[in-house]
């Protein structure tokens, strides 16, 4: 399936329609009928996670999340919205770039050995509820994994494509959701990635605000196609043509989210950090940092992995696996003779400067899309926007 660039106004892209709850159900049904596993937001373990959904009933109707540094709580919202929550503990990288992947397996074969690489086709996954920050994160990882070209110096550049990622990415059907609400750790607006999806989706939904107000209207979603596949699917769904007031309500919902951003990233964080590598703030944050790696695990763009070998007891069968790793582990920077980044300070600085600064040189963009997960899911609530601002403010004082 080819996904086109943003295609607003493209002649083959039909006008948006309004879907009700049955329409949303029909969307999930249609995707499942087309052989997709639909993965979307649902309640589990005190959070809204990204798991398979079988119908619209599985969505977290009426639930919202309250987030802050090191804190996430679910609570009933004011109305009965399906997507009034913001981003949860997981990102879509879990499904595009799984935590554990088999790279190859080997078998002893007489005096030699044979090597097999997995040939399973990429799973057909439909992602329901992809927010603008996470679409931006997919675009970031597309550059990292050599799927799309970029302006950075990294040698990837489509010459060394991660074929597994590329196949899963190409097979995925993406239903974006424009945010109608922002959390206290959201800052997509300040990094220019949201709260409205700018492209890279097959369909985009905007939940119309009626459903969020008690007793005011049934759930309704403005649905717009962003690709030919999205347009074809939309044509099969029971919706009514969107009127001017629907579009205005959708725009107002997104602008409402924009006005609610709980945090903001300072401008020009890249050069700021690059010229402050010896700033005393690094020692202060290192004293608080658990170097537990949660920030990198939840980050939708962090892509680092390690390679692990397993054998059976006889040594006749071996497997090589790739597993998510983190620049916060000591082993991550291990080279002959020892690990380069022994101190927590050097590991935190590596993560933050890579994310906001050296990522530009490497891949031509920032590595941060403003989703705020690293702030919420840091057990001690370290805030990347606050750390950047503290360094910036100190320059102002200096």
């Amino acid at each position, binding site marked *: 399936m080819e996904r086109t660039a943003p295609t607003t106004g493209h002649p083959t892209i039909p006008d948006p329609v309004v879907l009700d709850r049955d329409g949303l159900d029909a969307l999930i049904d249609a995707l499942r009928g087309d052989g997709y596993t639909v993965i979307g937001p649902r309640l589990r373990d005190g*959070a809204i996670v990204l798991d398979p959904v079988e119908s619209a009933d599985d969505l977290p109707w009426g639930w919202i999340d309250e987030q802050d540094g090191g804190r996430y709580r679910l609570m009933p919202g004011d109305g009965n919205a399906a997507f009034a929550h913001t981003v949860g*503990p*997981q990102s879509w990288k879990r499904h595009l770039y799984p935590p554990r992947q088999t790279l190859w397996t080997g078998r002893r074969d007489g005096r030699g050995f044979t090597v097999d690489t997995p040939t399973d086709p990429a799973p057909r996954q439909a992602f329901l509820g992809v927010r603008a920050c996470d679409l931006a994160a997919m675009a970031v990882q597309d550059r990292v994994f050599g799927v799309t070209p970029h302006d950075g110096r990294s040698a990837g550049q489509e010459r060394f494509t991660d074929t597994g990622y590329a196949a899963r990415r190409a097979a995925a059907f993406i239903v974006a959701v424009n945010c109608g609400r922002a959390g206290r750790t959201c800052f997509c607006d300040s990094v220019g990635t949201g709260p409205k999806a700018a492209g890279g989706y097959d369909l985009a939904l905007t939940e119309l605000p009626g459903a969020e107000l008690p007793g005011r209207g049934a759930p309704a979603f403005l649905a717009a196609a962003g690709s030919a596949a999205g347009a074809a699917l939309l044509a099969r769904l029971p919706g009514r043509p969107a009127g001017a007031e629907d579009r205005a309500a959708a725009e107002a919902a997104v602008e409402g989210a924009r006005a609610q951003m709980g945090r903001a990233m300072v401008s020009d964080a890249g050069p700021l950090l690059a010229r402050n590598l010896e700033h005393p703030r690094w020692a202060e944050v290192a004293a608080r940092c658990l170097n537990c790696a949660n920030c990198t695990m939840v980050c939708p763009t962090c892509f680092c992995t390690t390679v692990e070998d397993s*054998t059976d007891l006889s040594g006749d069968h071996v497997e090589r696996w790739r597993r998510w790793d983190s620049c916060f*582990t000591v082993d991550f920077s291990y080279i002959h003779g020892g690990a380069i980044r022994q101190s927590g300070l050097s590991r935190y600085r590596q993560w933050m400067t890579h994310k906001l600064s050296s990522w530009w040189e490497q891949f031509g963009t920032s590595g941060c899309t403003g989703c705020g997960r690293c702030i919420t899911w840091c*057990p001690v609530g370290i805030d990347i926007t606050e750390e950047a601002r503290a360094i910036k403010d100190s320059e102002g004082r200096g």
Partner: protein
Amino acid sequence: MPPNHMARKRPKLAVWKFSSCDGCQLSLLDCEDELLAVADAVEIAYFLEATRVAIQGPYDVSLVEGSIGTPHDAERIRRIRARSKVLITIGACATAGGIQALRNFRDVDGFIRAVYARPDFIDTLATSTAIRDHVTVDFELHGCPINKAQLLEVLNAFLNGRRPVVPPHSQCIECKLHGTVCVMVARGVPCLGPVTQAGCGNLCPRFERGCYGCFGPKETPNTAALAKQLTALGWGDAEIANAFRSFNADAEEFRREGDAHERTE
């Protein structure tokens, strides 16, 4: 029958017990599906929990469970070390002194007088200490009890001459790889996961409980920063001291954090 294991000399495996509850060596018997393969790959030369047969050393691999708690233990571990090519300690007792290391923080003579009718029968050291404190150890496998998959991995790595895949990173990484939602962030449940080594299969967080630290300190743990957060979540010093003083109480980083909170009581 494939001649594979007949053709090569099987390494001799010995399993030794010191001050411990036997739970870690039980993990080897608990391997069930893999146990026959293990018995096929190694010659079980000494493993009293499984067999009375005791074959003379030297041994290619010794698995050592338990801590050093008596003068006899201290002497015996030296003899075992001398007869073992590779010595691997298994479990919190062997790697950190175990729960019985709680006595390291108190007056042992007082305990003996309080507990035993004939204190003069008791010949114990004042401390319970890790095997590492007495002899050279080739590899330490953490856990109370150890994880059987990790035990198999260590044996497997030894048999195949490679490095065991037993990462010293945080429990948090294990939770995130499994997709377990963080109990501390989402529920405000105090958890030692951020300072504890992974390996248990994130047993407690999967059931909405905080990590008890059974696998001991991870690499470079920042226990002071975690303790500050535990305070913010409502724990007092006594609770924090108790949390760090359990199965791995005498592991250096946990001991220091426990001390820091006991002093301020």
